[in-house]
């Protein structure tokens, strides 16, 4: 078969008005195909949004959190300053660390404020000193740093966030995978439904097909009438479904901080163009499904 070029596609869409008239119009299957294509496209938009959003989330968690870590120094009150200085010295010498800074008392107090209120006398409490560590692009060797700290600053505990970050990143990755699996399932279901509809139409039009064969129509001519119909129908239905899905996503209430994950469901920037792939893809699925169904049916006729 020749590779279809754009004039062929255009010809297909504009169509052979005559060939189209050969098959009688079918009210109910037409509407059902349209409706199910729209519903599937609507669902595909959400599955796509889920995949994109979780992908974004995994990246953000992986990225931002990886770049900062915390060093906690717990030591008797008289040693804490000395150990802090020692730790900062070690951190300065560690390759891959862009900056390290001991939090001030005010900063520490504001961190604790949500839990203990504003009047907490931080100075008098045995609160560990926190040091904020910012990595450069390449990152540092956490294992090596821990070893060195345990030798030189016994009260230091390095928290590079991997411990709680990793499960979140994994979960986000799984969600994204689920999103893609859903998309595959949605298109698979669409193919199955269109095949069923096309088969029903082919069976209902057995006499039409027989007459066309007897007067010398080729299989490709007969198949085209069915294929074109179902492809265009699916394209139209899917386009409608995508628009409805995008509107639904636009109308999601935005709760900035509280929502986090929930409000992240959506597209950003050029990502809004991504769902536009769904209608042509659905049309391609319909084309292949109807083509296969028609060829199979026709081959069994005299």
């Amino acid at each position, binding site marked *: 078969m020749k590779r279809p070029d754009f004039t062929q596609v255009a010809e297909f869409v504009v169509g052979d008005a005559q060939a189209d008239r050969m098959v009688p119009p079918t009210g109910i299957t037409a509407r059902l195909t349209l409706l199910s294509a729209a519903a599937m496209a609507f669902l595909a938009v959400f599955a796509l949004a889920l995949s994109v959003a979780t992908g974004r989330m995994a990246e953000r968690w992986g990225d931002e959190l990886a770049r900062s870590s915390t060093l906690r120094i717990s030591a008797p009150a008289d040693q804490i300053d000395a150990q802090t200085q020692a730790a900062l010295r070690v951190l300065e010498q560690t390759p891959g660390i862009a900056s390290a800074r001991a939090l001030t008392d005010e900063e520490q107090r504001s961190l604790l404020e949500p839990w203990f209120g504003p009047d907490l006398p931080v100075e008098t409490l045995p609160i560990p000193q926190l040091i904020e560590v910012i990595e450069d692009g390449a990152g540092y060797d956490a294992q090596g740093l821990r070893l060195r700290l345990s030798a030189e600053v016994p009260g230091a505990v390095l928290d590079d966030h991997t411990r709680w970050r990793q499960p979140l990143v994994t979960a986000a990755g799984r969600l994204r995978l689920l999103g893609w699996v859903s998309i595959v399932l949605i298109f698979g279901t669409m193919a199955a439904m269109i095949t069923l509809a096309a088969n029903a139409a082919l069976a209902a039009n057995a006499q039409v097909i027989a007459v066309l064969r*007897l007067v010398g129509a080729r*299989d490709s001519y007969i198949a085209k009438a069915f294929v074109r119909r179902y492809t265009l129908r699916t394209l139209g239905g899917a386009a409608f479904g995508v628009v409805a899905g995008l509107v639904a996503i636009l109308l999601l209430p935005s709760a900035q901080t509280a929502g986090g994950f929930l409000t992240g469901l959506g597209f950003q920037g050029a990502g809004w163009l991504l769902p536009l792939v769904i209608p042509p893809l659905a049309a391609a699925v319909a084309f292949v499904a109807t083509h296969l169904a028609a060829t199979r049916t026709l081959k069994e006729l005299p």
Partner: protein
Amino acid sequence: MIELENVAMSYGGGELLSDISLQLAPGSFHFLTGPSGSGKTTFLKLCYAALTPTSGQVRLFDRDVRAMDRDDIALARRRIGVVHQDVQFLDHLPVADNVALPLTVSGRDTLDETVNLRELLNWVGLKSRADALPPELSGGERQRAALARAVIMSPDVILADEPTGNIDWDMSQRLLQLLVELNRMGKTIMIATHDLNLIRAAKGQVQARVLRIAGRRLQLAGADL
């Protein structure tokens, strides 16, 4: 044109036709007779490749039917006009479109063909019914429309299965006239019929041979009609 060589045909039970050999030469005119159920329709179906023989060879335009793929058969049918015994149409399209169907499916529905179409409809007496739908036609009107559809492509061969079954004598004569004219233009004609009067009428106008299916064989009937 169409050649059968030692053809046998069975639908699964016993053999319906055995050892049939025939060559339809270009420009020949044949009638096919035989009792009901003797296999006339079956024989014609073998001739336009709606059936493949259980044994023997059928050649359409010098090609073995078994070696032809579906597209080859479709192309061969454009050169063979068939009037079926159980005439079928596209019931959602008007008569004129149905008659023009062979042109349409072969991409030949040009403007000058529409003139032909009108003349042809006129000849078979369906001018006033051109816009009717096939289910609205009488049995005879259906057969006339079927004949018009069979000849519109100006095919090399015309096979007609009981084309005058539901038609009065005048109209039968008229349709026969059309087939005789086509035969004079060089077309090969084969008509399956019970109507001996039709055969007699034709014999006055053309050199027609009468074939008879009897006892599973094809025989050339004598001049004893």
